[in-house]
């Protein structure tokens, strides 16, 4: 029960506007010490040590650095603007470019914090500068940034493979079509939205009196350097030169190289980028630290057993079970992070699903799609916090909260389609 009270109190406390990370961490301490005594906190150093040794998360500072260097040298702006121009006078060009860049990042890694923050740094200022609606910009970035969890390689899928005992390769293959459908729907949504409300995502103004062909040539020239960078990052992963984490470092060094090539490099630039990287990284990891304290108190005060009991009382018939299971995961996703859900909830659901004769691969992809949504759901969706951390003061939490709503809707739509028509996605139930 203490865990549940703690959730409610956290929800209220967050509204005071004290930093999220320390609201989580401090409340975990107050409730934990009250329920279990000080010594509960003897577990904290071990938990922090696990984060310190989790080298996959090292991609976060590295991608942030790449994003910041690209932003400071205006190379990112050029990339997005030229991609926007290639889409012609179409409204929504920048948003579509953002989704495509997000999809490319998703295919190279699966670390949401890294993608959202990098995209927030690169494309949010450009979209705002071109008169895009704040909410639409934020929603697009958060949604594109979380794509990495369903588009392989993906950490959720690797963890689910471990928990459900399914080969990672099978999961990766099964996730390709659902991921592609999701990207397609995002793009389709932008197209339809900009047809209906062109003011939300105005087309980019033509520069000078360039003819269309001159414009295209200029765009193609501007697009080459940043595209080369993306090629370095993706290429190094796909050829096995580097792991996804390491590729982020190649990207960062590559961005510095571009700065040199474009005569923008200075040690001051590098140092300031490093300082900004530290600040943003600290923001992301403080949330992780606060969250690990929070989940520690939650589970050591018996919260995990309460959840388990509740789940074991779910209905035992196929569709009823599935609908309930998906709802439970979706709702829990509002509050606790995907690793917790994968390790606490999924093992309880798995034997039931197996007993009902469900295709476990399909079941796993349903869960993955559902968990991805949890990054976007207010008030605790991590993607929302991460974007808030790098956005200018003019962007308010509420802009981000309302901006992601349509994208959450699209994700749920894909989830429902996958649920009812698994055949469309190359799977059976």
């Amino acid at each position, binding site marked *: 029960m203490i865990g549940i009270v703690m959730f409610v109190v956290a929800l209220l406390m967050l509204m005071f506007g004290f930093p999220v*990370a320390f609201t989580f961490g401090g409340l975990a301490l*107050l409730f934990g010490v009250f329920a279990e005594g000080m010594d509960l906190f003897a577990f*904290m150093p071990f938990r922090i040590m696990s984060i*310190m040794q989790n080298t996959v*998360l090292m991609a976060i*500072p590295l991608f942030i650095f790449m994003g910041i260097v690209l932003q400071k040298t205006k190379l990112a702006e050029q990339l997005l603007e030229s991609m926007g121009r290639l889409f012609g006078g179409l409204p929504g060009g920048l948003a579509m470019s953002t989704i495509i860049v997000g999809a490319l990042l998703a295919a190279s890694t699966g670390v949401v914090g890294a993608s959202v923050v990098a995209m927030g740094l690169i494309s949010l200022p450009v979209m705002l500068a071109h008169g895009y609606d704040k909410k639409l910009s934020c929603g697009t970035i958060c949604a594109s940034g979380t794509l990495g969890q369903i588009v392989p390689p993906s950490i959720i899928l690797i963890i689910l493979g471990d928990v459900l005992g399914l080969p990672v390769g099978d999961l990766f293959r099964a996730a390709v079509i659902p991921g592609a459908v999701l990207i397609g729907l995002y793009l389709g949504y932008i197209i339809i939205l900009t047809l209906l409300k062109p003011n939300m995502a105005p087309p980019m103004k033509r520069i000078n009196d360039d003819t269309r062909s001159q414009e295209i040539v200029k765009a193609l020239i501007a697009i080459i350097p940043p595209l080369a960078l993306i090629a370095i990052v993706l290429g190094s992963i796909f050829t096995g030169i580097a792991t996804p984490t390491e590729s982020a470092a190649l990207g960062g060094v590559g961005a510095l190289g571009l700065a040199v090539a474009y005569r923008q490099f200075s040690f001051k630039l590098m140092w300031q980028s490093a300082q900004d990287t530290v*600040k943003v990284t600290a923001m992301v990891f403080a949330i992780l630290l606060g969250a690990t304290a929070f989940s520690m108190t939650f589970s050591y005060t018996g919260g995990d057993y309460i959840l388990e009991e509740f789940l074991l009382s779910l209905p035992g018939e196929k569709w009823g079970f599935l609908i309930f299971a998906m709802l439970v995961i979706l709702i829990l996703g509002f509050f606790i992070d995907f690793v917790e859900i994968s390790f606490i909830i999924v093992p309880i659901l798995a034997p039931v699903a197996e007993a009902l004769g469900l295709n476990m691969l399909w079941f796993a992809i349903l869960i993955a799609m559902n968990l991805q949504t949890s990054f976007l759901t207010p008030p605790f969706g991590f993607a929302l916090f991460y974007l808030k951390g790098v*956005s200018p003061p003019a962007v308010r939490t509420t802009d981000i909260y309302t901006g992601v709503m349509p994208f959450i809707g699209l994700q749920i739509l894909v989830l429902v389609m996958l649920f009812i028509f698994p055949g469309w996605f190359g799977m059976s139930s």
Partner: protein
Amino acid sequence: MRWVIALDNLLARISYLCGWVASAAFVLMIFNVFYNVLARYVFSEVSIGMQEMEWHLYAAVFLLGIPYALRTDGHVRVDVFYDRWTDATKAWINMIGAIILVIPFSYLLIHYGYSFTVESYALGEGSGDPGGLAYRWIIKSLLPVSAFFLATSGLGMVTQAIRVLKLGESYTSDKSAGGLA
């Protein structure tokens, strides 16, 4: 009040120092990872020690970055109401939050992080992998050390709040960065 200003400036300097060290660790880290990829791919050479150095540096980046970000207001807030409040209200929230949330949290991390480090030192703990780094207590000691700086940054929130409340200073200056900008 002069001592509050003096103390606040001192605390700020400590937090900025953390940021400086973390930034230096980051620059080393990015070239460390870059070098490791190069060495493995081009020279077919791998050093587990150099690989472990990566996470040592990465840990320093975020552990020392957190107190720095606290001073520069880099941590995310839910601003649904916060933005509309007066500086005085903000000051009270920050002061109370620092005293009941940040400082006790840091204290427990210092306390348990210290025994965590001492144990590692007493065992002479090192890496169990071939060519790995020795002296694991050094990186473990970063935990209580960074928690100590987190406490000083928390105290800095209090002195800052006092400056706002008593001296009428405002949060909109460079002390409040509102994200990255």
